[in-house]
């Protein structure tokens, strides 16, 4: 019987404590700076063009094959404004297949992609779960602004092609 009453005492005690619930859509848990949300594409503000050259490295190393990239000649390079000879033409990530592993970020030579903290991208149809280039830039540029990432400041962007 002793254990029985001990159990009752435990539940009574925890009832008197403050609930630990965080009422989600209204409140959010603090996110760690390292949080791995959906990948987003970064923007080179110095030249005002995407940092991505469409080199396909991320697409090749993505374990779930969820990235589609194509490249084109960079018009700004011809004008001499940009170091990037090629630039991304189209870029898609299938959000329903992305496992948020961060490999694409690790392998990118141009610091062009980053794990943003976006995580509420649920949708009701499969088609809407394909993040287009615009979606990726929206997430990436917003994250870039908040996290203070400047493309080209680091070591990555030297390795052109």
């Amino acid at each position, binding site marked *: 019987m002793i254990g*029985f009453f001990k159990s009752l005492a435990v539940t009574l005690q925890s009832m008197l404590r403050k609930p630990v619930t965080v009422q989600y859509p209204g409140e959010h848990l603090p996110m760690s700076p390292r949080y791995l949300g959906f990948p987003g594409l970064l923007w080179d503000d110095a030249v005002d063009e995407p940092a991505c050259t469409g080199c396909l490295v991320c697409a090749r190393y993505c374990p779930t094959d969820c990235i589609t990239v194509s490249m084109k000649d960079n018009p700004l390079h011809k004008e001499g404004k940009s170091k990037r000879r090629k630039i991304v033409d189209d870029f898609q990530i299938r959000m329903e297949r992305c496992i948020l*592993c961060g490999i694409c970020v690790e392998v990118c030579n141009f610091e062009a992609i980053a794990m943003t903290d976006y995580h509420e991208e649920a949708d009701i149809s499969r088609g809407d779960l394909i993040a287009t280039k615009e979606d990726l830039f929206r997430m990436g540029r917003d994250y870039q602004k908040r996290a203070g990432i400047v493309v080209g400041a680091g070591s990555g962007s030297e390795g052109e092609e």
Partner: protein
Amino acid sequence: MVAEADLQTVDMLLNMGPQHPSTHGVFRIVLTIDGERIVDAEPHIGYLHRGTEKLCERENYRQIITLFDRLDYVANFNNELVFVMAAEKLMGLEVPERAQFIRVILAELNRISSHMLFYGAFGTDIGVLATPFMYGFRERERIQQLFEAVTGARMMHSYFRVGGVADDLPDGFTAHTRALLDELKRGVQECDRLLTYNEIFLERTVNVGAITGEEAIDFGVSGPVLRASGVPMDVRVAEPYLVYDRFDYEIPLGKNGDCWDRFWVRIEEMRQSIAIVEQALAMMPEGPFQAPVAKFGFVRPPRGDTYARAENPRGDFGVYLVSQGENTPYRVKIRGPSFCNLMALKRMTVGHYIADAVVILGSLDIVLGEVDR
């Protein structure tokens, strides 16, 4: 009047799962029952088969880490650890000490969070209305927040790398962990007091699903289930890996090998894990967190094969790795402790009641991701 012997009764087949609230995922067990008593039990597995071993043959060493995260999806660090250890063994790689300590801390914390899930699920199986479940998840949440601060992900970390870890620990990690450990101590104590010596709990678990040490060894059972039967076998001691040979702790052993012993062993292991993490925090040196290997962890281990094993929350987790010197392994064979522990299920359940089958399955603490692979 008809004599009881003349009454014609037939055994009934009762199909439990794959959609049953207490089969812990998509496990199916076909019970032959005589009234409430179980005469036969036949487990069916494979509903969650994802072909991990085959997938490993075409992914490179960095990508495979993400697959191992998803094997035993409540002990992610421990799984990653065994795979990277196998690759390191093959390459003869010396892992920096700091990385080893980081790995120990994270693996032990993950053991606690996994046992907390066991605690919750077991409490629900035994019929408490979700209270242990909520307590277990309350503690898990704290641990997961720490994991998020370290790796960026709450469950699928992909943080360990061949030769070390992905990144150094974040600022304030030690303080955060110390605070966490204090809370965990309190939480474990509370969970312990809620169930362990409750009379009804004792009635339900003591002498249920008992299995002797010899039988357990014959079935290839490992981990807490084996230790509950009184066999002092723990890979951390038997074949020390990482820096486990530097800590002082205790290995809880049961005697009867019944559900209560398995429960108690896990509760006690949580306390011991806390002790290990405390010591590891105090002893952790500064230094590099990653040995110099190929870029991005795209290693090419030399031709050969090796076997690495570690003590996972569920038991002895092993990886047999064959390399042909390519950037992908030639073959990866996984020894999942849940799968092997499941072998003893029939021996444990036959002769007990339906309600006991649920409790016994809960006490084995299987994770279907690892059973079906």
